[in-house]
């Protein structure tokens, strides 16, 4: 579904993405793992067309994304730090997004809005919201349009245990529907039972892309956090 070929991105002298090539298919749930600053978020932003690669290209359903924009209709994106117009209320943001993406209300997935109880604070302005509540809005927006691909950048960071459980439950449910899920997280215990594949990045390079099962076999570990620790140690 998404194919990245030799994607390279430099910010000034710093190479953030170095010749990344990978394939993500429908029904997979892929976890992007790597130390801070290894280029995970930049890679995600490249997929969304927010960052333009210096060389290499990305295709979405066989379409090159560099000239395309329609493909984003099929992506739900939850940013690491959700930044929203400060003086709009939650209701206005949701209304605006529905207006822009013009989906029929029957196709909308408002489950997260209900489960996070955002209905009670609809009239609050974005600037008055706490970091966690913003995350909830971001998550609700990502799932709202029933997209084929979900890109979640640190979804559980800043969420309380209860909300983070609600979100994980939702991710599991969506996974059952056979959608492609790309997820980055440092809280590896969150990912154990969600993911099917792992992409490990370091210093802008893609170190490996394996299925969870083969990684289990290679490292002999049952827990993702231990398996990754194992990998990181052997890389040093």
């Amino acid at each position: 579904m998404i194919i990245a070929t030799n994607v390279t991105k430099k910010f000034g002298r710093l190479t953030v993405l170095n010749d990344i090539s990978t394939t993500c298919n429908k029904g997979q749930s892929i976890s992007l793992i790597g130390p801070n600053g290894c280029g995970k978020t930049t890679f995600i932003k490249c997929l969304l067309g927010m960052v333009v690669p210096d060389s290499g290209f990305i295709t979405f359903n066989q379409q090159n994304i560099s000239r395309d924009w329609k493909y984003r209709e099929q992506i739900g994106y939850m940013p690491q730090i959700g930044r929203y117009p400060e003086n709009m209320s939650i209701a206005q943001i949701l209304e605006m997004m529905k207006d822009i993406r013009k989906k029929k209300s029957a196709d909308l997935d408002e489950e997260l809005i209900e489960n996070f109880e955002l209905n009670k604070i609809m009239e609050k302005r974005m600037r008055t919201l706490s970091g966690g509540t913003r995350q909830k809005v971001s998550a609700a927006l990502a799932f709202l349009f029933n997209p084929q691909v979900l890109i979640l950048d640190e979804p559980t960071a800043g969420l309380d245990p209860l909300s983070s459980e609600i979100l994980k439950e939702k991710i599991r449910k969506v996974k059952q529907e056979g959608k492609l899920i790309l997820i980055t997280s440092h809280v590896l215990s969150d990912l154990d039972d969600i993911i099917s594949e792992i992409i490990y990045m370091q210093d802008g390079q893609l170190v490996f892309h394996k299925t969870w099962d083969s990684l289990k076999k290679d490292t002999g570990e049952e827990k993702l956090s231990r398996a990754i620790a194992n990998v990181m140690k052997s890389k040093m």
Partner: protein
Amino acid sequence: MGKIIKYVMLDILRNRIVLTYMVFLALLGFSLFNINDNPSKGLLSLLNVVLIIVPLVSIIFSSIYMYNSAEFIELLVSQPLRRINLWMSFFIGLGLSLSLAFFIGCGIPVLLFAANATGIMLITMGILLSVIFTAIALLATVLTRDKAKGIGVSILLWLYFTLIFDGIILFLLFQFMDYPLEKAMIGFSVLNPVDLSRVLILLKMDVSAMMGVTSAVFHEVFGSSIGMIVALCILLLWVFFPLWLSVRKFNRKDL
């Protein structure tokens, strides 16, 4: 595209600066026409104020607005929208609300007291200048990521177009006094939209007769209807060129 324009305009209306600007222009217009018993004198005073204030407000407000909308733009870029449409929506939203504010604020007193060719020229130029400086502001904001730096650049650009450019011209005129510079002056005026619009309005006024040889040359070039159309085209170029540059830059920008 229409939807984004709608949200931009709603947002601009909500923050009231543009409304204040409109009321200020109206107050200025009415008082200047009332102080001067002769409406064409009032128009002349209004001209000088408009040529300074309109570029200033347009460029500063637009650049601050663009920086404050950074989050909004970031949010929209990840949505199924064409980047050029997004950028044009911001341009149209800003340009339209600033022109509208000018048209209502300054247009009403002008049409009430001096509804002649000069008055209409003043209104047209004011609207064109609003749009030109919005485009320049968009270019300045897309080139500089830092907010303080970007607003600084905008202020410098305004200073350049309203003061420094004229200073340079005066300097050149005095240095090369012995040479006939009248024709060259036309070339110089094309390089500055504020000067060009000032010339166009002054040519419609009686005072232009008092400006000597330069004015005669200007009259010869811009006084005819073809010259007028050429001048308007040059002003439109001042809108499209910065806008085109900024769109190009924004299309490749990393957010």
